[in-house]
Structures are given as C-alpha cells and as structure tokens.
C-alpha cells in the first residue's frame, strides 16, 4: 500500500562543511545516509530518520542538523500532526501503534510547580561541604517498636528485625530488562549500582548467569507475569525480589519484547525459543485478587528464606491509595509505584498516552492513606516515572517517598535521546538493541562511569538542598511536606498533594 505519511524529520547537510568522511553513514542504524561514489556526495533518505541525533553528535565538522520536518498540515488544534500520522499509519497496517519511552503529552508536571524551603535566621543552614550530610536509606519493613535489653551500659536488641536493603543514596535504577536493552547497557547499570552503593532492577528479562555472583547483591530481581528467567538461584542471589503487577507506561498490560530482539542469549536468559515474541500476559495468572498476591509474596519469602524484602510494583492508577494499602497488608515490604510518565521499551501508544495518573499525585495519596491507617512504616515507597533532576527526587522524598527509581534519566546519561523507537531494536546509541554491531557502541566501563557521575552529581545536589533546609539526614525530610509549597496549582491539586501554596 502506498504510504501517505509525511516524514517525521528532515536532515539538513551543510555542503560547505561536509567532508564525506561517511561517519554518519556508519553511525545511522536506519540507513538514512549513503555516499554516492560517482558524485562524491552524501545523500540522506529523510523518511527513514527517527531523529536520534547520533549522526549530528558524531559528525566531526558539525555539518548536520536533524530537526522536525518542516512540512505541516493546516494548523488544527484538535487534529494535531501526530493524530494525523498515527491514524494514517493505522489505516495502512491495521495494527496497534507501538512506541517506546515515556508519555510525551502535555500533562502537568507537578515537580515544576513545587518549590523547596531553605533556612533563614530562625534555624541555620547546615554546610554540606564541610559538615556531614547523610543520604543512606533503608528499604524494607520496620517494626512498630524495638524490644531492647538494657544491662548496665550494654544495650542489645531482642526483637527480630525484618530484612532491609541499604542504599547509599535515595536513587536506584528502574526496571529495564535485558532484552529491552542491550547486554552492555544492562551491565553498565549493574556496574554503576555496585560502584555507587545503590541498586538496579533486572526488569522482567531475568539476570544472566555470568552476572549473578558479582552483581546479584546489588540487584532487585523481578518476578513478572511472564516469569522469565525466574529460577531459585536468581531469587536467592538478589538483594530484593519485586513482583511486577504493572508499569506506568502501560498499566494493565504486560511487557512486549518483539521477536526481532530475542537473540540467542536473550532466549537463554529468559528460557524461551529464539526469535519468538516475548509478550508477557496481562495479569500474573496466579494473582487474581489481593489474597492471591499475599500468597505469592509469601511464596517468594519462603523461596528466599525470609532473608530479602519483597517489593510489589504497580502502576499509578485511580485508586492507587487503596491498592497500596492492600499491598502493604498483604505482606509486601516495599511498594513501588510507576507513574504516568514511566518509560518502556515497547508499548501500545494509545495506552502509554492515556492510561494512568501522574506519580506526584499518586505518591501524595498513597503516603497519606498509609499514614492515616497507621501502617506507613510497614513498607518503603519507591516511586518512578519521569524524574529528570535531583530536585524532582528531593521533592518526591518530601512528599513521602523513601527512594526514587530512575529509568529514562539513566538511559539519557548513557546517550539516549528519547526518539521513542526502542521497539524497533535499531537503537543507534546501542542501548535498546540486540544487534551486536550496534550494542558494541556501549562500552560498559565508560557508560557505567556516566551513570556513576549522574548519581554523584545528583547526590551532591541533594546534599546542598538538604543543607539549605537545615537538615543533615535524608530521613528528616521524608514526608516533610511542610518544606514544600505549590506555585501555580489549583486548590484541589494542593489538597491532594497536601501542600500549601507559596506564601500561605
């Protein structure tokens, strides 16, 4: 069928700068550029360009500009360019439009409307450069009270304490499965988590055997609806186990790994035939109600000898507060909530853009509900879904989160430009691909350094902001909404967030 689609991007080449080195031709994963030998000129097939900016960054003379295509439909507030393109593509294929990355639609970003406090006069700022500033966070269930035995000057703990996992900064890497991302990218996340003292999440793709000994203790392993790669060693080598009920990008449905991306080693790790699509079922088939969740949580605790906290990851949906309360009562030690802007390797676009609620509102509602029921200390809350900077992280902690998962931010640190074509398996940056030629472009030594730099920079910024608020330990800002104010928000939004308007 002849395609009626307009190209998405245009490639502009400055002929005065192009030296025909053909780097762009080699770097592009879509085959946009090619060199015509006879004319000694580079040609670009614009219609294939996905706007990943790889050729622009690598062009040694800065000869390329890649920008949205100048051809436009007549301006129409209701029928945007994107609506046109998607509809026409659907008419051509009859299929479900896929996409990657997180929700890009103009839903309000509440982090941009919240501001933090600082100390002035009535109490001092604390100097983060010279005096200690502590970010260490414990994830897991805490007891109501501690039973202690005091004998003269020696105090010892009598009560049994639930297993907790320690991270040195309240930032962990979100679930990105080996399969969705390349082995090298996956390993970079593991190396960075180990070096910095935090955790990475294996996603539903399992943990390759060669990585278990070294990186297992820094991993949160996922047990998702497809149960890919879930074997006893996998469960026992980890720091924590996560039951994935849903994710923010596609609440209510399971993971998608197109057959193109199921290589030999993926097949081995996930224990499925090579080249088949790994489409996780929508529900976990042994969890049809909350009491079944309770059953699975305890099954995992048995399988890991009660030594690891069990986390349950859900997407932020309308009655997330009640669901979270149920999850805590079902026995989970950690509740992970993924909001509307969570990323993905592949999801139906219509679901990514229309299902779920923003994480800011979900977090505020869950934290408040758990406190009202007197059970907030029975779990740690981890949140995910579009965190872009350290201020977002700190605001989330002030709203009540224990720690924050970053997914898209980690990929951006490694080179991703959110071109949203992850599902094709042709990522020019070598991140979301299984093609060995492309995935070699990620050198784990270097990519993990980028990630460690990210963690270090953000952690230091958080310390500076904490010091400014007169606080020297992250636990004192957790849930401390008094240090937040809203700017440009409506009344009901301030109510849900539990935050005053600036000046109030």
């Amino acid at each position: 069928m002849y395609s009626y689609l307009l190209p998405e991007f245009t490639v502009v080449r400055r002929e005065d700068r192009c030296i025909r080195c053909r780097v762009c031709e080699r770097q592009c994963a879509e085959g946009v550029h090619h060199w015509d030998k006879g004319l000694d000129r580079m040609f670009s097939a614009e219609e294939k360009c996905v706007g990943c900016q790889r050729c622009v960054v690598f062009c040694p003379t800065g000869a390329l500009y890649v920008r949205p295509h100048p051809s436009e439909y007549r301006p129409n507030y209701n029928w945007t360019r994107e609506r046109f393109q998607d509809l026409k593509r659907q008419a051509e294929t009859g299929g479900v439009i896929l996409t990657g990355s997180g929700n890009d639609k103009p839903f309000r970003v509440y982090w941009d409307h919240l501001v933090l406090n600082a100390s002035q006069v009535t109490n001092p700022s604390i100097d983060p450069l010279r005096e200690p500033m502590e970010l260490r966070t414990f994830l897991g269930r805490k007891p109501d009270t501690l039973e202690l035995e005091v004998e003269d000057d020696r105090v010892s703990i009598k009560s049994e304490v639930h297993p907790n996992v320690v991270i040195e900064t309240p930032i962990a890497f979100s679930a990105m499965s080996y399969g969705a991302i390349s082995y090298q990218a996956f390993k970079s996340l593991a190396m960075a988590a180990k070096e910095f003292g935090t955790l990475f999440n294996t996603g539903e793709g399992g943990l390759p055997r060669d990585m278990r000994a070294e990186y297992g203790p820094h991993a949160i392993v996922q047990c998702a609806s497809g149960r890919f790669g879930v074997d006893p060693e996998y469960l026992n080598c980890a720091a924590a186990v996560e039951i994935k009920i849903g994710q923010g990008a596609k609440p209510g449905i399971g993971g998608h790994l197109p057959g193109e991306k199921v290589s030999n080693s993926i097949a081995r790790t996930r224990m499925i035939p090579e080249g088949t699509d790994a489409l996780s079922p929508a529900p976990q088939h042994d969890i049809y109600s909350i009491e079944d969740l309770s059953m699975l949580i305890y099954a995992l605790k048995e399988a890991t000898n009660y030594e690891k906290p069990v986390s349950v990851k859900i997407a932020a949906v309308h009655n997330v507060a009640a669901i979270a309360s149920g999850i805590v009562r079902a026995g989970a030690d950690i509740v992970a909530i993924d909001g509307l802007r969570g990323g993905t390797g592949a999801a139906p676009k219509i679901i990514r853009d229309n299902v779920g609620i923003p994480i800011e509102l979900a977090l505020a509602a869950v934290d408040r509900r758990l406190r009202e029921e007197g059970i907030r200390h029975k779990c740690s809350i981890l949140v995910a879904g579009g965190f872009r900077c350290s201020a977002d992280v700190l605001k989330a902690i002030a709203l009540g989160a224990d720690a924050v998962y970053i997914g898209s931010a980690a990929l951006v640190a490694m080179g991703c430009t959110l071109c949203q074509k992850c599902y094709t398996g042709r990522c020019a940056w070598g991140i979301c691909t299984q093609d060995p030629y492309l995935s070699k472009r990620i050198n784990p030594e270097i990519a993990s350094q980028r990630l460690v730099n990210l963690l270090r920079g953000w952690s230091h910024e958080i310390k500076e902001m904490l010091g400014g608020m007169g606080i020297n330990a992250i636990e004192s800002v957790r849930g401390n909404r008094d240090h937040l104010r809203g700017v440009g928000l409506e009344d009901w939004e301030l109510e849900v967030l539990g935050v005053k308007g600036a000046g109030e």
Partner: protein
Amino acid sequence: MATVSARLGLRDMFMDGVRPVRELLPRLYLNGQTAEIDGADLKHKELNDLVREAAFKGARKIVLRNIYGQRYIGTRLYLPTRVEIEVHSHPGNDLGAFLNGHRITVYGNAQDGVGNTMDDGEIVVHGRAGDIVAMSMRGGKIFIRDNVGYRTAIHMKEYTGKVPVLVIGGTAQDFFGEYMAGGIVILLGLGLGEHERHRAHYIGTGMHGGVIYLRGRVEPYQLGKEVGVLDLDENDWQIVRWYVDEYAAHFGTDADRILAGKFQKLLPVSRRPYGKIYAY
C-alpha cells in the same frame, strides 16, 4: 518593671531599662590608671558603657568584678589607646568580639564566641571556653587553659604577616578548625590520659590554609578529608616552642614537659578542595 502597651508591640530585652552612664558612675572606681567596676546586676550595655567611660577617663587597666554572663566585653573599644581588662569571673558570649588590640584576662570559664572575628590583641582564659572560639579570627592571640567546644577556629584567616594564634591546653569537640583559611592553632591535650586520644571528629574539615599543631593521639578517621598529617620541621618547632612557652608562662605549667609530648602537624592538602565538585 516591665511595661506592656495595649497592643503587644516590641519588648526590647537588650535596651529596655538600660540606665544612662552618668547614673552608673558610682560603680566605677578610678585610681590613676587603674579602674574597677562592680558588675553586679549590670546589663550588657551598661557594663560596656562603663568600660568605655573608664578608658576615656584614662584607665589602662580595668578590673571587672561580679561578672555573670555579660556579653561583648572588650568589643566597644575601637580606640587608639590599648587597655587591659581583667574579668572576675564569668563573662558571657562574644567575649572580645571584634577585639581591637586590647588584652583581656578571664579568671573563670568563658562561654561561646571568644574572640569572634577578633582583629588584634590577646585573650587569656584561666578555665575552659565554649563553642566557636576564635571564629573568623584575623589577628592577635588567644590562650585557653582547659578545653574548648565545637567549631573552634572556624574560618580563621591570615594574610601576609598578620597571623592569628590560638593555643588550647586541653582537648576540643567536633569540627575543630573547620574551614580554616589561615592562622596557627595549637591543641595540647594536657588533660588526656597517656593513651587517650582526642575526642574531636571532622578535624580540619574544609581546611584550605593555616596549620594545626596537635599534641596527643588522633586516629585518621577523626580527620577531615582536606587534612594531611606531617611531622614538624625545625621551623615548626620554633613556632610551637615560642607559643607553648607563652602558654606556660600564663598558666604556670611546665613548658618542657609539654614540649616533650608527641606533636603532629595538620596541613590542608589543597588550596582548592572543592574544585572538582562543580561542573563549569
């Protein structure tokens, strides 16, 4: 008696009820160049008014008696002549703050802020002192016989020849020498047992100038990241000997015994310890 207006208004705890100097003159006994002031029940401003009055009237030595907590003693003396002040016995906070070259001797314990931003002069305390001793000190000398509290010598400074000196006989608490930019600090640890180590943590955190001479034991983990430990060379020994002799003279202790102890020199590792933290 406190006065309250119909609306609450401002109640000034520093200035309310302050008596003018002429009313207080009977408290000031002047005998040639020596003055004595009875500080009983005097507010801060009243006491310091009298001290200044005494200096104007020609006193070169001013003895303060019945002192319980009055602040800023010695601060209001931005005058060309130098005086000597004796405090009996319990000065309040900010003793010798912004001191302009005078000499203060305290026969008792001092509180917080001794020598705060002191420019020049000498303070001798026959007892202990509190927190932030010698904060931002820019010149002059302070001798404390016993222990000191937190954040001693914080952001002490020096510049070509104008070098402040602080000598402490006992031990200190945390953040000793925080963010030092200059000056000489000597901590003698005289009250500590033979194998007892100093108790301060984060010693020299943020230090980027100046030197600390430490007598006694510290473990490496007690030192800030910006501090390096070295042995003393001949130059260092000269300095230490000089000021320990002065300390011994003030407090009647045995300088040789002190100098026989184990000394270490703490110096900043870099002049720009935070260069790598920011992305330019």
